[in-house]
């Protein structure tokens, strides 16, 4: 059986590599909490490459304007049609930020309309239980950015309310962007929601 590989998507526009510590942190959490067979290091895959079809879950983030090229758009559309899932996180956590505006527009154009994901969705019970929806990030609480707590994530849903694209304005990329060794200094592991996303992608 092939091990799960956490893949970060590389796109032509913007800064795709703005959160380089997130993959290692989530890999550590998956190994820590679950028995999922997982590769010890992540992969970086170009969205214009056929290699993206080897990684049915792809993580995208950035601060800058977000646009797919024509080839990337075609590939991404094909990717989710075959059963892949994208997790896109706004590294700016701004309501009207440039990444948010361009990314939501691009996702709607490439993959379908984004809708608010109900906080009762299976995602929030895939492993850990989050009764109140997506966990709040420190960036939302400390007033840095738009000074709002985003109560819901957004998603492009498929049949059976399966998530095809998960979009977050909560800046989990900043929240999870630290060395895994630092987890022991935290009272609550904030990457637990990342475990839910991966378990959900692997099981639904």
């Amino acid at each position, binding site marked *: *059986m092939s091990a799960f590989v956490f893949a970060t998507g590389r796109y032509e526009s913007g800064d795709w590599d703005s959160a380089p510590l997130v993959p290692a942190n989530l890999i550590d959490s998956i190994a820590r909490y*679950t028995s999922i067979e997982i590769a010890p290091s992540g992969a970086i895959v170009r969205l214009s490459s056929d290699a993206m079809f080897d990684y049915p879950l792809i993580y995208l983030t950035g601060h800058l304007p977000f646009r797919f090229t024509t080839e990337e758009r075609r590939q991404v559309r*094909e990717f989710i049609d*075959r*059963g892949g899932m994208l997790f896109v996180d706004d590294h700016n956590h701004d309501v009207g930020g440039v990444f948010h505006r361009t990314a939501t527009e691009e996702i709607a154009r490439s993959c379908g309309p984004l809708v608010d994901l109900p906080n009762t969705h299976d995602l929030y019970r895939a492993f850990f239980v989050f009764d109140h929806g997506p966990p709040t990030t420190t960036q939302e609480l400390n007033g840095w950015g738009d000074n709002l707590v985003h109560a819901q994530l957004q998603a492009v849903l498929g049949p059976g309310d399966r998530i095809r694209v998960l979009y977050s304005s909560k800046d989990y990329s900043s929240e999870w962007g630290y060395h895994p060794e630092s987890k022991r200094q935290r009272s609550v592991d904030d990457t637990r929601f990342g475990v839910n996303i991966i378990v959900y992608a*692997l*099981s639904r």
Partner: protein
Amino acid sequence: MRSVVERTARLVAIVALAWSAWAIAHRTSVETNARRALTDWTTQSVRIALDSTPSPVVRDWLAALRRNGVTVAWSWWRTPPTPLAVAAAPLADPAGATRVAVAAPSGTLVALADRLGSIDTGRAASGGLTVVAPIALKSIGASGARAVIADSLVLRPLLVLGTVSWETKFVVRSLEERGWTVDTRLVLGPHHAVTQGRDSPLDTAHYAAVLAIDSGARSAAASIERYATQGGGVIVAGSARRVLGAIARASNVVQFGDDTTWRLRMDSAHGPAAHRDLWAGLVAAVAYAPRVPAAAHVEDDPAPVASTIARLGPPTPVERGGIGWPDPWVWFGVLALGLLVDWTSRRLRGAP
């Protein structure tokens, strides 16, 4: 003298033409002729020459006459039809599929069709051929034979066992897309499992088949073995073969070595359909699916030649007594000849 010949030929042609028109207008089918003859015949004896296999109604009629003391003798009018039998059964596939089996002499070209039209053709080899039609058929015809298919199968849910992985995820996804209801019990840790659907007992009253995708099925080995002995279908895939070795020897178990079929789904635009077909085919091969029998149908005539001989006995030579009207082709020949003689004669004497 010549004009007499021409008039005669023209008269013959006109008579032939009129007769042909009348014959076509009043042409009756073999079935109608047989029914009329059966009605008209006395109760002494019946002699019949068949140019095709009679319908079940005519067969039964003749058999009833024989049972009532009438001497029934029959034979084939020309070449006997090819003895052929067809049987069809629905496959355990929610999308609908039918396996059609035809018994026919090797080399026979068999045309399969239903009420809506042709489905497939094939040449029989080694005594027959088998075709899987990707649709749920109500009836199937094969070169004169016709079988009515049982109404439906009872399709219970499937149970997928394994670990949380791309393979289990996409197997479940493809089977659900195919129309199956799928329950899952996927190991996620020593004290965690991802479950979907009901936590029903593992028996044939609740599940049509169990799919052990990998070694995550180890803890259910005893239940799976008991299920297999009940007649339930089991698919043992990937690393599950190592932990379920004893079960794999049961008759209703399919072993499947590849545990990365999800790549088939992701590899091309046709991948999802190919992946669905792959797993639906494996499940259909083993699934326990009780059949709801269809009521006997008058159109059901799966082996017409064999049934004719079974009902009426072997054919016997019969005298073709009486003077019957010639075949319409003979009349057509007479008509053509008359016109030709008339035209040739007129041309030879220079008339228009």
